[in-house]
């Protein structure tokens, strides 16, 4: 079974530029998450989708971050304009409604803002 796919793996941008990350979850997983992981810390939830609807975006900085999951499968996370403190790994994860809500992570997209 293919895992969670993310791209790009690495991105370096200047502050105030924009960047987009893409995620394709495990096939059949209705729930998709974007987490932000700053170096040395645990993953922090940005947004949770159930199919193509938003379940929780309370920690998403909506003035600069946006995310969509239009067809209920893959998702895009955008940052515009980027700030230095956005430097982090952006982890996409997915889970199935069936079973125990185990979350499976992708390898992450590493963002450096200079």
């Amino acid at each position, binding site marked *: 079974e293919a895992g969670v796919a993310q791209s790009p793996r690495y991105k370096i941008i200047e502050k105030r530029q924009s960047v987009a990350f893409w995620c394709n979850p495990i096939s059949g997983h209705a729930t998709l998450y974007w987490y932000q992981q700053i170096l040395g810390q*645990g*993953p922090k939830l940005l947004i949770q989708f159930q199919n193509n609807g938003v*379940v929780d975006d309370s920690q998403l900085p909506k003035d600069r971050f946006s995310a969509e999951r239009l067809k209920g499968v893959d998702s895009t996370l955008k940052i515009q304009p980027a700030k230095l403190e956005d430097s982090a790994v952006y982890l996409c994860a997915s889970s199935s409604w069936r079973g125990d*809500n185990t979350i499976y992570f992708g390898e992450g997209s590493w963002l450096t803002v200079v």
Partner: protein
Amino acid sequence: QQPVQSPQAVILREGEDAVINCSSSKALYSVHWYRQKHGEAPVFLMILLKGGEQKGHDKISASFNEKKQQSSLYLTASQLSYSGTYFCGTEMNSGNTPLVFGKGTRLSVIA
């Protein structure tokens, strides 16, 4: 409410044992344990549900004390491959609520 993990870091020699704790001030429904190696995605280890039994596979096991709202991860006879950062993720309600992760415990196993 972010769970609190302890210790923050631990160094072991191969074959030694370790315990990592994860505590919450709120009532928990489940605790999930992950291991992350540098530059890689967190990998799921196991989940403990409220009212469930201690779980384990190979030489890694975990327990969940509902009275204390604390979970402990036990690593016995550690191997070099156990090195990494261990995170607990907690869930307060059943059914599709996002995990809240602790800050992690960095485990280094040396020969």
